[in-house]
């Protein structure tokens, strides 16, 4: 299986008014085609920084110190190097934390999909834009793509907006999708549907998915592999079942113990 994303020894620091803060410390991670890799950890563990580093959305005061990010064959991030613009939105799609607020409130869904398609597909015709927009919404299990395309975001339910946001990330057929806490703002039922949707997308399209979450149980449901992060380091990484059943690290054990149970 081909490697879609490879992080090697990635270290990132933020310059603050009172010194430097290590956000990522020597992180190694790999995602292959058809694989779902979960990155779990508590707030401030560096998982969002990891996700944003891949698409070059780091804050101005943040710097890559060591290590590289490779997407496909292309090295996009290295110290002093940022070629993420070449993969952003084309090879890598991204879904954000609050997916329903990641749509521009002033533009119809149709306009927003067309904008992404026109940007990434050279010389695409109007008919082709429409066809692919309808197609991607159908892929998102949206029953009436016509109505949704003609709607403004505020006219859609939270669950629908979420699907549209995912559709916007995959409409350009990226090989890799990064989902950053994208189920956090949803109720449990919608959350389950979205997770199922991701699973189907990975199976149908053969993409790789980097699923960032603080929810260990959710990650264990969805992911093939899990990387546990703490303080900017990956403290444990492996097969999802192995990590959950036989955690090797004290930190992972504590995280697991923190999950409330029925017994």
């Amino acid at each position, binding site marked *: 299986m081909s490697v879609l994303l490879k992080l090697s020894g990635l270290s990132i620091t933020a310059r603050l008014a009172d010194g430097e803060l290590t956000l990522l410390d020597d992180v190694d991670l790999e995602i292959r085609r058809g694989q779902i890799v979960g990155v779990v950890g508590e707030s401030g563990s560096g998982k969002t920084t990891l996700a944003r580093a891949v698409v070059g959305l780091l804050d101005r005061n943040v710097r890559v110190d060591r290590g590289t990010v490779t997407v496909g064959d292309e090295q996009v991030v290295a110290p002093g190097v940022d070629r993420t613009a070449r993969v952003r939105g084309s090879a890598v799609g991204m879904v954000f934390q609050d997916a329903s607020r990641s749509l521009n409130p002033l533009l119809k869904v149709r306009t927003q999909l067309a904008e992404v398609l026109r940007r990434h597909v050279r010389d695409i015709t109007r008919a082709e834009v429409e066809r692919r927009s309808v197609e991607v919404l159908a892929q998102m299990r949206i029953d009436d793509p016509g109505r949704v395309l003609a709607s403004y975001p505020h006219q859609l339910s939270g669950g629908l907006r979420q699907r549209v946001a995912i559709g916007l*990330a995959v409409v350009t057929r990226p090989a890799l999708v990064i989902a950053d806490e994208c189920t956090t703002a949803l109720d449990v039922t919608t959350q389950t549907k979205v997770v199922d949707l991701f699973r189907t997308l990975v199976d149908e399209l053969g993409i790789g998915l980097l699923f960032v979450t603080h929810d260990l149980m959710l990650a264990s449901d969805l992911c093939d592999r899990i990387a546990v992060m703490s303080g900017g380091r990956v403290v444990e990484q492996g097969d999802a079942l192995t990590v959950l059943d036989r955690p090797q690290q004290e930190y992972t054990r504590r995280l697991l113990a923190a999950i409330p149970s029925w017994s």
Partner: protein
Amino acid sequence: MKASTVRRVGGRLASLFASLLIALSLAFLLGRLSGDPTATILGPMAPPEQREALRHQLGLDLPVVVQYLDYLKGVFTGDLGQSLQFYQSNTSMIADRLPYTLQLVGAGMALALLVGVPLGVLAATREGTWWDRGASTLALLGQSVPVFWFGMMLVVLFAVKLGWLPAGQSGSPRHLILPALTMSVYPMAHIARLTRASMSDALAEPYIDSARARGISTRRVVWRHAFTNAMMPILTIVVLQTGILLSGAVAVEYVYSWPGLGQLALQAIQFRDFPLVQAIVVFGALVFVLLNLLVDVLHSIVDPRVR
């Protein structure tokens, strides 16, 4: 149209009409509070009988309520009364002066927009840098400088010292440059500061990061996604500021002897020509109400959520 939309539009129109009525009543009351105009017209030495005759001629001996109703009737039929000093209809005098004020305000606001908006966007997209600090300081300065002083300084420099431009009055496009520049300073600074704040809010919205993550170019993200979302407060200020200036750019018109509405208002006040003062205030109130309506219409065009 949906019933809720009709109800909202109806409510809005009713509240605009109410504000107009309040403004009209205040204009009437303030006119009556400013003293007896017959003293100014006839001079302090005029005999009481003559003043009484004039009061009768002007209808000032009628009960205030009757005067008020006459006045309202006049306003809604387009008759704003007669000037006490020019012996002309107020409506026609306002119509004569309006083109000059429109020229001045149009040029001033265009300049304010053309400089203020890019300056604000520049500051917001480079938040925390020296560009930002420079632009913000400039804007603060622009909002603090007194208009009349700035106008006089421009006259001293460009008309007196350098002799490049005329110092006052109207006639050619060259006459317009200094007054328009003077007039633009305050709104320009206001627009720049507002654009900076509004853009910086918009740029922090999640949909901006999302658009960037979708590979949309920076320029498009800034203008198409952030600016359109940041535009509404700017549009509002531009339109309302235009209203303020239209109904009396007094300081600028005074400094440059510009024959617009501001000058007329000043002459009317100095002469206690209260029908004319009243007429100008009424005109300003009408302009303001109409511009408020325009803001609402623009808002509903820009933002689908308020349709």
